[in-house]
């Protein structure tokens, strides 16, 4: 396999890590340290690597010990503090220190490589999750699986076996990796998958490294068995950072597993027995082990020597006469020539995930390491990660852990025979963390962060006693390796400096992720167009075709204005306003929230929610209402219409629709469950066009002639384009206006028909200007959660007759009742061309107190000048104020907040005089929400998975008892049903045929698509046949029709988002 390192061509072997391949090619210096610029080499053979960090493709920093070699791989060393954005440098935003600059980083070709990765995520569920595929984890997997549990095994390596891959241990007479490969694992096995986080309630997040991009697995397990092994540690002695100083276990892994042992002479610093194992394996690989310094036998390494490049060429070994004393000269220091110093400082159980799960640790004096102090809730450790060392011991422990986690009893578990190569009795590791040296070379505690013993001494010298403080002061343990090799050394050195036991010092808090995770992996599919769901109306494509400029309102895309050729926004809005005030104009108002409210107590319920009265509203009448929170502040507003004695239709603001529905259900379920009332969202079912302007009747006469006689604030069912629809005479502009509703599939046809009849399309900006001219507040613009209806000058809408409504009591609080609160006022800039900034502060005199702020500011075609709305305290019409913003001060005059038609004389419009256009009766073409995707769905289909829309399925939401009968009946919640199919609806059913559409995903790989976005357990034993849940980032009803056939009921407005999401997921299979 060919690869390059810093542009130099090299060759490696299949199965190599980049680190192994670099050693194979004689590379000893792989980079320079972050702060001191010292040469550094490969120190470990795993994810704990502190030194050998490289850039590979778009990944700016990876441990070479974890990068699987592939043909053509290009890796670059890192120097200094990372890559600098040269654009930022050019702007002077970054101070470029030449000392820290890597020349390779100045090559434009190396800047910001395009990230081609396609990352995603997936949800899995199991009874037992085993983390780690070494002897203990494999045994736990076998035991749990044979106990009948659903088991998942994740392991970070491409091959199972864990430490067996690095050792020469033989099990049942065969090499360890063969034993592992021969196991029949009753589990779903994910290799090259690193568990990075262990959270509440058995939730484990793991990153699977795949060629096309990482997948972030979210695994929910009843029980978790951690078999994460142990990390060998180093200790602090002078010159312990030279290239050539390596953990003994790493040297052994390179020799045994990769056949790479590019050293002639080696010294082993054996503070633990594992050093002797490494020495034996190095000898077997042809390396001359010229000395073993074992502190337990009175010998320590006190320093290293290096060649001109700083690379190790010798090791200083001293006799150690008993207890160490600073500055004390040692007897018999000798220098031994060597290219490798293999350090066996002892082992630290890899308790990171256990610690994240809030498992408690204790310091084990025998092992000289922190080990789990019993299990954590739902999480237990097995094998080396709880300090049970030795292959047979780990396997036995794994069997026990797996059996216990599965809550069963496995049979036929046998611990394989394992020949013991130990030549001397086991001894505990030396309690040695720090060796004082005779040289000036620094002794490092954290190689990654360049933290030395002197740095730690400075920290403790200032009085710091907490390892958390020392960590933050010195940055020890804060590198990309999160201190995997250094934390024990830091604790040990601190205990030596402070004269306390390591157990007293304790550890820092373990936090996810266990290894670095790229932002691309966290983002997964949620990037670009899919980064946040975009909701669209039935008329969206028509708006796009007309060149509308959109704005985001909540998740909706709404046309802000419709510019004609060459028009600026101001010009377009001016023209649209003129059309609405003098002729006829039309707006897509489908995004307003619509809630069908039913039940004998619906009126009584609304009386408690709104500040005004609804129970006495006549059938067919509409009433504007404001609802407050319990704190008395305005929460939402809208018009609610009585459709029948026991039935209302509430409209909400676009952005608050979901929150209002949530709140209605909250009050009903938690405070007034005795009220007979239910709520059904019909926001997506109805497509709504506002027809506004003095000539609106000309349009209505053609599209909904039955509604022509409608009085102001009245509603009627009417044929719209021959289709059953609803027309409301409501005006938010002050002009004659109708809100015309048709089911979603006819929305676009209605829009086109209205425009054909001469209505000028207008967007949200014109809507805002028109309503502001009338002094109508917008929730979220004039209000911010601190504004009462009274503050808005709407005391008239707050009932004094009703015994109570939500917020009433708060209106009597001293704070809300005081008369110097900010209130809604109008402003006229002295200069009629000056548009003051929204958000500008209002002051009475320069330097005086702020009296309020501007909430809305527009140019008015009707007034021929600019105007504004504001919230201001202690002002009255006629007051002269200054609006201050961004260094500009504009004089303004306070006026009443109604600028246009204060007598409401415009809302009756012009009567029909000349003959109106003939009514349109031909039933228009209907269009389903996913219709624009039909061809792409067909093209994306494979034998594995197919996607199609089942359009125009009749659907009803039903409350109460199981409606039974014909069609598909899905239970959505307690006393809540969705009925689908060609059935005859009963009287109290709510038609929601336009609210959702059905996307059918089928084929053997359908479930593989769904698991990348659906968090519920789809396993037949767990999935109840259908469920309301999430898919991607939208709510759906998911129904399994048959094995391999899933129906997804998605809100019409979310259909485009979900269609794009599904297509992306199918392509990524």
């Amino acid at each position, binding site marked *: 396999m060919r690869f390059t390192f810093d542009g130099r061509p090299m060759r490696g072997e299949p199965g190599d890590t980049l680190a192994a391949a670099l050693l194979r090619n004689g590379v000893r210096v792989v980079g320079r340290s972050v702060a001191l610029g010292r040469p550094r080499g490969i120190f470990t053979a795993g994810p704990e690597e502190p030194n050998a960090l490289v850039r590979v493709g778009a990944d700016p920093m990876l441990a070479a010990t974890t990068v699987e070699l592939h043909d053509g791989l290009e890796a670059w060393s890192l120097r200094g503090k990372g890559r600098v954005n040269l654009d930022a440098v050019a702007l002077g935003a970054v101070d470029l220190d030449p000392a820290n600059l890597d020349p390779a980083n100045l090559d434009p070709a190396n800047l910001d490589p395009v990230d081609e990765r396609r990352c995603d995520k997936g949800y899995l569920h199991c009874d037992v999750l085993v983390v780690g595929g070494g002897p203990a984890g494999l045994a736990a997997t076998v035991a749990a699986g044979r106990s009948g549990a659903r088991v998942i095994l994740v392991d970070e390596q491409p091959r199972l076996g864990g430490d067996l891959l690095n050792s020469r241990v033989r099990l049942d007479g065969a090499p360890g990796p063969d034993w592992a490969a021969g196991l029949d694992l009753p589990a779903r096995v994910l290799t090259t998958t690193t568990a990075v986080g262990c*959270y*509440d*309630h*058995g*939730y484990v997040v793991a990153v699977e490294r795949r060629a096309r991009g990482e997948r972030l697995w*979210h695994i*929910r397990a009843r029980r978790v068995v951690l078999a994460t092994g142990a990390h060998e540690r180093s200790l602090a002695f002078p010159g312990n950072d030279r290239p050539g100083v390596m953990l003994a276990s790493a040297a052994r892994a390179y020799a045994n597993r990769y056949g790479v042992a590019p050293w002639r002479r080696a010294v082993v610093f054996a503070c633990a027995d594992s050093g002797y194992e490494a020495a034996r394996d190095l000898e077997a690989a042809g390396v001359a082990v010229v000395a073993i310094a074992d502190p337990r036998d009175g010998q320590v390494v006190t320093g290293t020597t290096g060649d001109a490049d700083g690379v190790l060429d010798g090791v200083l070994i001293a006799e150690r006469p008993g207890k160490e004393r600073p500055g004390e000269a040692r007897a018999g220091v000798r220098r031994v020539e060597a290219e490798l110093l293999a350090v066996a400082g002892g082992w630290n159980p890899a308790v990171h995930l256990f610690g994240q799960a*809030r498992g408690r640790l204790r310091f084990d004096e025998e092992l000289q390491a922190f080990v789990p102090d019993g299990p954590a*809730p739902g999480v237990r450790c097995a094998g080396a990660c709880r300090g049970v060392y030795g292959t047979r011991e780990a396997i036995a422990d794994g069997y026990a852990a797996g059996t216990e986690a599965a809550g069963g009893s496995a049979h036929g578990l046998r611990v394989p025979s394992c020949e013991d190569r130990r030549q001397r009795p086991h001894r505990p590791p030396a309690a040695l963390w720090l060796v004082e040296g005779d040289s000036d070379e620094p002794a490092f505690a954290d190689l990654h962060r360049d933290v030395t013993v002197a740095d730690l001494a400075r920290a403790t010298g200032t009085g710091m006693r907490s390892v958390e403080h020392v960590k933050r002061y010195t940055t020890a343990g804060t590198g990309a390796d999160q201190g995997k090799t250094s934390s024990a050394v830091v604790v040990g050195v601190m205990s030596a400096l402070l004269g306390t036991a390591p157990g007293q010092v304790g550890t820092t808090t373990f936090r996810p992720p266990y290894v670095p995770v790229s932002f691309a992996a966290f983002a997964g599919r949620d990037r670009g167009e899919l980064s946040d769901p975009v909701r669209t109306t039935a008329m969206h494509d028509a708006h796009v075709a007309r060149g509308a400029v959109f704005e985001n309102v909540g998740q909706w895309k709404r046309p802000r204005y419709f510019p004609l050729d060459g028009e600026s926004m101001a010009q377009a809005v001016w023209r649209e306003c003129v059309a609405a005030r003098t002729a006829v104009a039309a707006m897509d108002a489908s995004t307003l929230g619509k809630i069908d409210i039913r039940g004998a107590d619906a009126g009584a319920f609304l009386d408690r929610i709104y500040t005004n009265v609804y129970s006495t509203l006549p059938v067919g009448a509409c009433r504007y209402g404001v609802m407050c929170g*319990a*704190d008395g502040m305005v929460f939402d507003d809208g018009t609610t219409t009585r459709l029948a004695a026991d039935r209302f239709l509430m409209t909400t603001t676009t952005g608050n629709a979901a929150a209002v529905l*949530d709140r209605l*259900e*909250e009050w009903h*379920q*938690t*405070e007034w469950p005795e009220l007979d009332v239910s709520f059904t969202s019909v926001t997506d079912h109805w497509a709504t066009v506002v027809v506004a302007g003095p000539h609106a009747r000309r349009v209505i006469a053609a599209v909904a002639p039955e509604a022509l006689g409608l009085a102001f604030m009245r509603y009627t069912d009417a044929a719209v384009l021959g289709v059953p629809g609803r027309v409301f005479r409501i005006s938010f502009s002050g002009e004659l206006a109708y809100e015309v509703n048709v089911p979603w599939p006819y929305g676009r046809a209605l829009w086109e028909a209205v425009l054909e009849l001469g209505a000028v399309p207008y967007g949200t900006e014109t809507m805002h200007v028109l309503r502001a001219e009338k002094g109508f507040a917008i929730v979220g613009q004039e209000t911010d959660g601190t504004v009462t209806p009274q503050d808005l000058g709407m005391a008239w809408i707050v009932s004094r007759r009703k015994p109570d409504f939500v917020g009433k*009591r*708060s209106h009597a*609080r*001293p704070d809300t009742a005081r008369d110097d609160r900010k209130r809604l006022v109008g402003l006229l800039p002295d200069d009629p061309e000056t548009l003051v900034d929204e958000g500008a502060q209002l002051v009475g005199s320069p330097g005086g107190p702020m009296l309020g702020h501007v909430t809305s500011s527009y140019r008015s075609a009707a007034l021929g000048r600019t105007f504004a709305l504001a919230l201001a305290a202690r002002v009255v019409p006629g007051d002269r104020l200054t609006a201050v913003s961004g260094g500009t001060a504009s004089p303004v005059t306070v006026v009443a907040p109604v600028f246009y038609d204060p007598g409401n004389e415009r809302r009756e419009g012009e009567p029909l005089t000349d003959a109106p256009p003939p009514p349109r009766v031909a039933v228009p073409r209907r269009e389903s929400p996913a219709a624009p995707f039909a061809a792409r769905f067909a093209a994306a289909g494979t034998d594995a998975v197919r996607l199609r829309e089942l359009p125009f399925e009749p659907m009803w939401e039903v409350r109460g008892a199981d409606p039974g009968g014909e069609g598909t009946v899905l239970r*959505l*919640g*307690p006393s*809540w049903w969705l009925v689908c199919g060609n059935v005859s609806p009963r009287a109290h059913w709510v038609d929601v045929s336009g609210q959702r559409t059905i996307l059918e995903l089928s084929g053997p790989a359908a479930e593989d698509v769904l698991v990348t976005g659906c*968090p*519920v357990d789809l396993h037949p034993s767990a999935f109840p046949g259908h*469920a*309301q*849940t*999430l898919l991607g980032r939208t*709510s759906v009803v998911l129904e399994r029709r048959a094995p391999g056939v899933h129906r997804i009921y998605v809100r019409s407005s979310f259909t485009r988002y979900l269609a794009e999401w599904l297509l992306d997921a199918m392509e990524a299979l």
Partner: protein
Amino acid sequence: MMSLDCPHCGPRDENEFHYGGQAGVAYPAHETTDEEWAAYVFLRDNPKGWFRERWFHVHGCRTWFTVERHTVTHEIRKAP
């Protein structure tokens, strides 16, 4: 990501729910002083330990329910 046991749907991930705050804070049925009313609107307990709280299965069956959660360990048990 906690797992919450919806009384209707069974265990689901936390992000299918909205948090509803302290349970058992009833809407005052009688006349209140300003202090009593302010306590109802603004004051909530914040214990270290077991806490009765409400959750709303917003992306599922839309049911409000009450559980007891330990604010340190996130252990959850059915509210009595």
